């Protein structure tokens, strides 16, 4: 194991030779231009990120507001505790038709169709992330001072008004954290893709990080992999900067 690692030492490969380094960079730049998919995947990854965040937060907020932020629902967020290996084995074991009562699920078909495979990955990722987000948002709602809620109610605020004008602004610091970390995690999605679809069918579920992984560790195309990871980093960082610009405008601290 250790010797393999030494053989992979990239610094030894490029360190003493600036020309080799420059050549590698040039090749990388060229291969990015030639590998048109990179651009496509960039947009797609961003879309996934947006969807995952929306779905996760919408679900967490909906679940929370339906149940009045009480203890009842909290017994159900078991999913954060499941070892990841088990989650993924379970997910891959379900790639078959199975019947529960009158309903028949054909999950394999969903993952084999290039139009719906991404939706499947999305569902799995949302499921994996929803527990922790739920706990965080629940905790933030609990932290809102009682008197503020009481005052708003006295002033005649309805439930919707209460949610959008009082509660959401008050928990906006936590929301910023949730959106930011979810965005980062979503941009880094590669595990479910690796295990369920391996980027297929016809590359419809390849995310940037999966592309990086296959380029670097499978095809030994290190320059392309390095470039893709830089693109992913730059994109994510850009989003983060945008979010923090929003923080200055919309997030209120008491």
């Amino acid at each position, binding site marked *: 194991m250790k010797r393999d690692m030494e053989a992979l030492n990239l610094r030894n490969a490029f360190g003493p030779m600036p020309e080799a380094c420059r050549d590698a960079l040039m090749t990388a730049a060229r291969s990015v231009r030639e590998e048109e998919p990179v651009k496509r995947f960039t947009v797609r990854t961003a879309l996934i990120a947006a969807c995952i965040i929306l779905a996760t937060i919408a679900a967490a907020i909906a679940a929370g507001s339906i149940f009045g932020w009480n*203890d009842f629902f909290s017994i159900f967020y078991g999913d954060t505790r499941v070892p990841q290996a088990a989650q993924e084995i379970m997910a891959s074991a379900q790639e078959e038709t199975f019947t529960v009562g009158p309903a028949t699920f054909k999950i394999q078909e969903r993952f084999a169709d290039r139009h719906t495979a991404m939706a499947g990955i999305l569902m799995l990722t949302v499921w994996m992330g929803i527990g922790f987000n739920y706990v965080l948002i629940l*905790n933030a709602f609990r932290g809102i001072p009682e008197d503020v809620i009481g005052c708003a109610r006295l002033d005649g605020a309805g439930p919707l008004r209460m949610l959008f004008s009082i509660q959401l602004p008050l928990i906006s610091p936590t929301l910023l954290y949730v959106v930011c970390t979810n965005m980062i995690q979503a941009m880094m999605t590669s595990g479910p893709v690796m295990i369920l679809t391996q980027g297929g069918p016809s590359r419809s579920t390849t995310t940037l990080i999966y592309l990086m992984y296959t380029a670097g560790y499978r095809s030994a195309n290190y320059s392309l992999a390095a470039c893709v990871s830089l693109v992913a*980093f730059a994109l994510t960082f850009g989003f983060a900067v945008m979010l923090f610009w929003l923080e200055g405008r919309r997030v209120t601290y008491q």
Partner: protein
Amino acid sequence: MKKGVLKGILGLTIGCLLMFPVFYGLAGAFKTPAEFIGWPPTVLPRSFANFDNFRAVFTQAPMPRYLLNSLITASLTSVVRLALALLAAYAFAFFEFKGQKVLFFLLLGTMMLPADTLLITNYQTVSRLGLLDTYLGVCIVSFVGASQMFMLRQRFLTSPTAVREAAQLDGCGDLRFIVSILAPMCWATLVILFMQSFVAQWNTYLWPLMVTNTTLMRTVQVGITMLTTIEGTNYETILAGSAVAMVPAIVLFVALRRSMNRTIGGGATVG
């Protein structure tokens, strides 16, 4: 009354949907191999008294040792990570200094690096430090968590500044303020973050696999994959192993559940 019943039914439905894969996995741990690959697949095992898979988990691998390893590394990591995050978040939330924004973004930036890119350099560093196959080697790369720091900063920024001013007026130093005022005020957040980093560390697979060489140092997630034999993968054994690995995390969760919901300092600034 009727509204309550409706809410209950809706909650139960969503809860069942969320929990189904977990339940399916648990049920799979009680199935025989023939049952597991049989057609059509079933959800429930024939009997919940079939403990063969669990017996296999404990006889094929030193499971208690794996659990102990995981427990040690996960708790060490979470404690150190929270302590460092607490200090860093305090600085970012309450102090004003040059380059604060740049440093903060630098820290956030560490979250955005794909984990695979860091594997090789991390491995080299750890091996040169002579930490291969030690608990410290497993933990050391996760000692600093930007995510926890970020969450704590958000939490600190919402706590009223009047409290800190009052404490300073009374001659309370920064460290004492953190330990005896700020940490109890943010207890719920700290507990949640502890849970989260404990579970995350408990579930890491790739890094412990790379750093450990001997059977005695393997963590439980690595141990579960070691249940795979040459003849093939016994999914029901692996599911039983996963079920065993879930237990400590669930125990921790149940133990901390009450303090996760506790909020102090609601009236800190009254009067």
